[in-house]
């Protein structure tokens, strides 16, 4: 392992493929992660609000979505989109779309749960107070509940975002042209696995670490602000 690490010849071979394979793969992963995160957040907020709605039908829809996608493996879901969707829609699914809907829908279910618990953690009196001031349901959510929810759910939300970034690597299994795909491809081509996977891991780290630090910063900042003062600002 150590000798493998220090093999200059193999690192030179890696540098050769860095611009042609790793960088395009990195960009693909970044694009899929960002778009996937956006989709997951949108789905998470919609279904999270559904599940804390008073209407049973919304609750039911949200439960079905969450339970189904939370309790089936992401790999199966992505393979399904890849191998079965073309039969249903009669065409190829572009790899980018495949990745975005794959991680987006999967993590949307988790984020929905995060948001539901966040909303439920806000004291019910906050709803009552908002209604008494003439806020509609959506207005209550928008101005009163979700801002308070955001602070509480930041750590679990970060968790989901980081997992989403890492889970984009499942694309590699269906030739997704992402970072892991190229790393795996080059690694098995030359047999230089240390040089193939270590930089690959570092590149994922390069996306995740700043994201984690940013979330930590936001979390600390949120904690520093006294909650009652913030409530006044919002109201």
């Amino acid at each position, binding site marked *: 392992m150590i000798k493998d690490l220090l093999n200059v*010849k193999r690192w030179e071979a890696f540098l050769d493929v860095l611009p042609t394979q790793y960088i395009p793969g990195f960009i693909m992963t970044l694009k899929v992660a960002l778009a996937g995160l956006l989709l997951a957040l949108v789905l998470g907020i919609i279904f999270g609000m559904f599940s804390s709605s008073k209407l049973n039908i919304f609750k039911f829809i949200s439960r079905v979505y969450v339970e189904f996608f939370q309790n089936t493996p992401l790999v199966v879901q992505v393979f399904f989109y890849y191998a079965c969707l073309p039969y249903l829609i009669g065409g190829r699914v572009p790899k980018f779309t495949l990745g975005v809907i794959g991680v987006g829908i999967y993590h949307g279910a988790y984020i929905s749960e995060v948001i539901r618990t966040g909303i439920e953690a806000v004291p019910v009196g906050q709803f009552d107070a908002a209604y008494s001031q003439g806020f509609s349901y959506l207005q209550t959510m928008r101005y009163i509940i979700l801002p308070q929810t955001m602070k509480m759910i930041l750590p679990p939300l970060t968790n989901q975002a980081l997992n989403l970034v890492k889970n984009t690597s499942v694309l590699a299994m269906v030739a997704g042209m992402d970072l892991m795909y190229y790393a795996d491809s080059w690694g098995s081509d030359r047999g230089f696995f240390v040089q193939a996977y270590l930089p690959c891991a570092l590149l994922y780290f390069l996306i995740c670490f700043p994201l984690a630090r940013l979330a930590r910063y936001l979390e600390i900042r949120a904690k520093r602000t006294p909650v009652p003062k913030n409530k006044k600002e919002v109201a």
Partner: protein
Amino acid sequence: MKRFKTSTFLMAAAMTAAVALTGCAGSSDSGNTKAADTTAAAEADTTADTTADSSSDTGSGETAADVQKIIDSGILKVGTKIDVPKFGLQNTGTGEMEGLEIDLAYEIAGKIFDCTAAEAKEKKLVSFQGVTAKTRGPLLDNGEVDLVIATYTITPERKETWNFSTPYYTDAVGLMVLKDSGITAIEDLDGKIIGVSQGSTTKEGFKAYVAEKGLNVNPDFEEFDGYPSLAAALAAKNIDVFSVDRAILAGYNDDTTMILEDRFAEQEYGVASKLDNKGLAELVDGVVTDLINSGTMDTMLKDWGIE
């Protein structure tokens, strides 16, 4: 609560230990490979000479250390394909392995254990393990298998990492398409997606072939881990072409597909062993050369219906 914590801790400790152990095994192996890697070029001649002496005496006197290790273990571990008809195929009825490369493995086992190939088969002196284009290299390196006889194409790059015997068969790459795709010739492939196997040489071969013919055909390539996923991708039309060695394609051709006329990237299959195991490589090469020179290889190819 206390008990729960203790058990969690123990579990974590056990897992860490397991990881550390496997980590050590892996690192020492790859360390060896690397050591051989850098010195191989410089010392190739000397190593070959010394081991050639020892292995030529196999059976009568001194035996190379790596070969002796196999004799001591009493079994030769060989990685073969399990899904390539005529070369390496697991009979779904009996579970037995069949094919040219299986027979070749028994020939080599016969030489190592000093008996005939038939006896080696009778005594089950070879244990077969299914490998794919991707797994065969690492399996050799970590000692999981002694030899890989799995439609393994010899390339200059691979020779830096593993030992290869004299080629026992020359194959070419083929292109398989769906009959209803409208593709009938290589000229139709511009802008299409060609699915190839991960860790294979198909992509380079295709590019060289079209360049040589002066065609302006620029398809995209997608790599898959294993032939079944390639076949599935072709069936779902996620790829337009399934392109691997013709020997392998034959096993996947059915009434919905057809193989185009084009043959390219003539390639030679060799028996691979770990780079350190020079003695074993020498012995294997002797067996293959003998089989070719005596004409036995031709008979074996004919027996399996391979052209």
